[in-house]
């Protein structure tokens, strides 16, 4: 029965990975950029909320309200100032630029907040300790359930945005062919900046989830990035938007089951599942890999209104 509990906890953990993976998949799908600072941005969001909570005794969920618009603006500026310019010299240059951003954020956080680990879990009151006892072995923590629910809502909202709204349509058009999009009156750069803003916003929610469920430090970002990337790849490199959430769940289950075998094996088990999925002939749970990752872009397109 303990296995059942591991799987349940893994699925719930997958909700967190799904949130972290969502923005990464969106940026890759729209602009073909893999943002190496994605995890650090989530951690930056967590620190901004931490900063607010140091001064005001409110719930972390309230702290998200002022932090979110700041982070959205940051994402917009990041695209306009750095990524858009670096896109001119090919798709690999933004990768290098985001790596620079990653290093700057990590070290700036350490400079500002010190190297100690922090957590916001203590400020949510009963939410952290509340749990539903299903039976003697299986219990579901309220916080984990909330994070998982948030993941489902985020994916649903993003799908609705892309498939049903005018701005979402324009984003799919600019993702498919930015030059032609310009020719029908779409400001592709503004659309890209909006996509990055959304990705950064979702990462911020991921940062809150991270800060609530465990601890974070200035150097927690790269791990979150790697987990997010693993979720995206296991889910089929964006064969569908929901694939990233499914990939997150697979990763979460691998980690909790791995930890059951040997606590030191938790993260390694996730890496191994990632590599196994990679070598499998289909190379992803949901995709036939055709020409390395064209899938992500096509997937966004397929979310059309019907």
């Amino acid at each position, binding site marked *: 029965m303990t296995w059942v509990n591991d799987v349940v906890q893994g699925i719930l953990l997958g909700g967190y990975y799904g949130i972290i993976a969502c923005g990464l998949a969106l940026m890759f799908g729209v602009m073909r950029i893999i943002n190496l600072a994605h995890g650090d941005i989530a951690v930056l969001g967590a620190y901004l909320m931490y900063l607010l909570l140091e001064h005001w005794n409110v719930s972390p969920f309230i702290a998200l309200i002022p932090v979110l618009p700041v982070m959205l603006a940051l994402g917009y500026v990041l695209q306009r100032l750095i990524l858009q310019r670096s896109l001119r010299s090919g798709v690999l240059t933004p990768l290098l630029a985001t790596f620079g951003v990653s290093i700057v954020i990590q070290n700036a956080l350490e400079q500002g907040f010190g190297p100690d680990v922090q957590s916001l879990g203590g400020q949510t009151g009963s939410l952290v300790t509340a749990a539903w006892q299903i039976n003697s072995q299986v219990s579901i923590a309220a916080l984990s359930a909330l994070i998982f629910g948030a993941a489902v809502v985020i994916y649903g909202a993003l799908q609705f945005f892309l498939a049903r709204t*005018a701005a979402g*349509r*324009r984003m*799919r*058009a600019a993702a*498919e*062919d930015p*030059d*032609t*999009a*310009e*020719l*029908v*009156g*779409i*400001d*592709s750069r503004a659309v890209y900046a909006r996509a990055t803003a959304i990705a950064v916003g979702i990462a911020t929610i991921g940062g809150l989830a991270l800060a609530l469920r465990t601890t974070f430090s200035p150097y927690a970002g790269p791990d979150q990035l790697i987990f997010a990337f693993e979720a995206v790849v296991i889910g089929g490199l964006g064969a569908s938007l929901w694939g990233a959430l499914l990939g997150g769940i697979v990763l979460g289950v691998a980690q909790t089951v791995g930890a059951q075998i040997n606590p030191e094996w938790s993260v390694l088990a996730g890496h191994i599942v990632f590599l196994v999925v990679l070598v499998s002939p289909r190379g992803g749970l949901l995709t036939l890999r055709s020409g390395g990752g064209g899938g992500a872009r*096509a997937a*966004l*397109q*397929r979310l*059309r*209104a*019907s």
Partner: protein
Amino acid sequence: MSLLSVDSLVLRHGLLEAVRGVSLQIEPGEVLSLVGANGAGKTTLLRGLAGAHRPASGTISFDGQDITRMPAHRRVRQGIALVPEGRRLFANLTVEENLLVARRGAAPGRWDVEAVYAALPMLGPLRRRRAATLSGGEQQATAIGRALMTNPRLLLIDELSLGLAPVAIDDVYASLRGVIGDGMTVLLVDQDFSRAAAISDRVVCMLEGRFVLAGKAAELTREQITEAYFGLHDRGVVA
């Protein structure tokens, strides 16, 4: 006043000078055909006018306003639309979505989805189809409809009939005639120059990046155009 006025426009692809200092005026309501062999610079010129290709020198003004440095999406709002070579539809969007994406950046005007379906009746039944699944003629009609959605005052069309079946070509030209009948100003590029000339007021012939012949469509003979097309014409002459 001319709707479009181009002066000494030069467009480059790296070292290659694709358009070498051309000047052109288009009056409101005029239909102009641009003919020339492959590589004459027609597509580059159209892309330059639409804002997809930055000019190396020269000026473009539209309705009295200098738009030489204006990015493509803002020219659309001024009223310039390009139907690009190869249609370039958003393959994974439906026909209707392809039309709708063009609405936001559009100039004010009468075109909307229903007006496009009325003008291009073949599109109505296809509205929910993914663009990738359309035939060539259907794609071309969608591309024209998409351009119309932006309420253009100047419609640039590149290779209207290229790759289409003869029947589809008839359909597409019939649609275009309808649009022209409404008073649209059109700059048309098509390899089938006798068809293109038939609906045009004026014909300009392009060779190696320069205009080598221009005249009223009714007054130019087929021989004159053929000579200019193949560069048999005296190259110094710019009519």
